């Protein structure tokens, strides 16, 4: 059998997903037996021009990590879509927008002002902001355009599969790679994970009754290691998050933050978490409810930590 051709790419991401692909350990030898990597900016020196020269659909699968924030991200997403038979949104950024997607609370102007002018460590007295074109003695230079709104990969090109996680766990990555290597592919659009249910299903903590009088931030309490974190007032996102990771964070006494995305069939993870979370508030008195809610300093950022670009609203409205 001819070897598979695989491409890996990073768009707006932190680089963690590229490391996560290596976290499969010795299984990487099995991957190397079955597949050749034809394009991988972080690991192999190939240029975009090399990809442009490849025939259409000549790459068997592309593992694309990172959200779409610049014209370069968009260009390469479209290029790799044209060259690949299977497009996989690998990791939360490509799947839902993730942490880069939080800049959808702002726009380009506000982001630039913060990053290039306001941050305390920045020294930019002339208030120079990035321009797409600049003239230098040697000619005109062009850099990619920075968009107002971060998008997911599926909002930019057609995507075949999604691999959740920030970054995807080793076993999740292998589940996807194994499907590619063996050719036993799930139906198009599948979110590849070991679970379609909520994380609570695989969390070993004991659950009793969910009634919360006060919400805490993780630094404010040392939680009981056996009891459900949500019942202890921590904003544990497990009830609204797809399982498959093995509930690693709750087992380390940290609440789930929701990186595996919504459970199967759910649109807008944040709205569902809001719904579930607020209904466990243990009060029927409007003033007390308001006080309890005041313990959550940043509901939008907490509920949409990984999924703002993929949510119904997609971004904040800036006046």
């Amino acid at each position, binding site marked *: 059998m001819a070897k598979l051709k695989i491409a890996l790419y990073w768009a707006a991401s932190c680089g963690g997903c590229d490391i996560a692909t290596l976290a499969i350990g010795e299984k990487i030898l099995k991957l190397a037996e079955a597949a050749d990597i034809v394009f991988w900016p972080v690991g192999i020196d190939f240029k975009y021009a090399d990809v442009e020269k490849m025939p259409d659909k000549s790459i068997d699968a592309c593992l694309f990590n990172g959200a779409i924030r610049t014209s370069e991200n968009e260009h390469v997403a479209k290029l790799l879509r044209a060259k690949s038979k299977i497009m996989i949104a690998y990791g939360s950024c490509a799947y839902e927008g993730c942490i880069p997607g939080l800049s959808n609370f702002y726009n380009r102007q506000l982001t630039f002002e913060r990053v290039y002018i306001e941050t305390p460590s920045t020294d930019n007295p002339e208030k120079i902001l990035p321009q797409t074109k600049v003239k230098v003695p040697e000619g005109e230079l062009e850099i990619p355009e920075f968009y107002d709104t971060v998008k997911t990969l599926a909002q930019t090109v057609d995507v075949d599969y999604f691999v959740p996680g920030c970054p995807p766990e080793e076993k999740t990555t292998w589940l996807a790679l194994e499907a590619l290597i063996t050719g036993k592919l799930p139906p198009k659009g599948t979110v590849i994970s070991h679970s379609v249910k909520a994380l609570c299903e695989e969390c070993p903590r004991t659950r009793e009754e969910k009634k919360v009088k006060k919400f805490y931030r993780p630094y404010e309490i040392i939680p009981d290691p056996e009891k459900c974190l949500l019942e202890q007032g921590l904003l544990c996102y497990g009830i609204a998050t797809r399982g498959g990771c093995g509930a690693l964070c709750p087992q380390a006494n940290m609440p789930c933050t929701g990186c595996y995305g919504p459970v199967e069939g759910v649109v807008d993870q*944040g709205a569902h978490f809001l719904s579930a979370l607020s209904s466990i508030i243990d009060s029927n008195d409007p003033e007390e409810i308001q006080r309890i809610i005041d313990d959550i300093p940043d509901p939008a950022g907490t509920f949409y930590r990984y999924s703002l670009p993929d949510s119904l*609203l997609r971004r904040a409205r800036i006046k």
Partner: protein
Amino acid sequence: MDNFEPKIVAFCCNWCSYAGADLAGTSRIQYSPNIRIIRVMCSGRVNPLFVLKALTVGADGVLILGCHPGDCHYIEGNYKTLRRIPLLKKMLKQLGIEEERVRLEWVSASEGAKFAEVANNFTQTIKDLGPSSLGPSKQNSQEARHG
């Protein structure tokens, strides 16, 4: 904006508020025609997602109407709503949407007049606020995966 006629979605619970709206109708009480009623079994059925969806597909305001606290047909469904809506409003504010566009009110089956008053008052609030910054025409032209 003088000619602005807002689109308002009102989620009415089956047991109290929908009957209240019905009473307003059978009593021939005039109220603002901007209200589009959607009947739900309980105000507790109104997932915040419904409110977000209504706003993204063109509603300028969303009313959630339920039984008075203590009167819920399902005993405590409306208490869940009572807890959800303030948190939803706090979140909407962060996302740049005026929290006045979402309102929770209690309307019993005998309060036809109150239903009309709430409808008129809310319509006026939304008229004063102006059209929503959301809605299909303001959305990004590229289709979302979720349509």
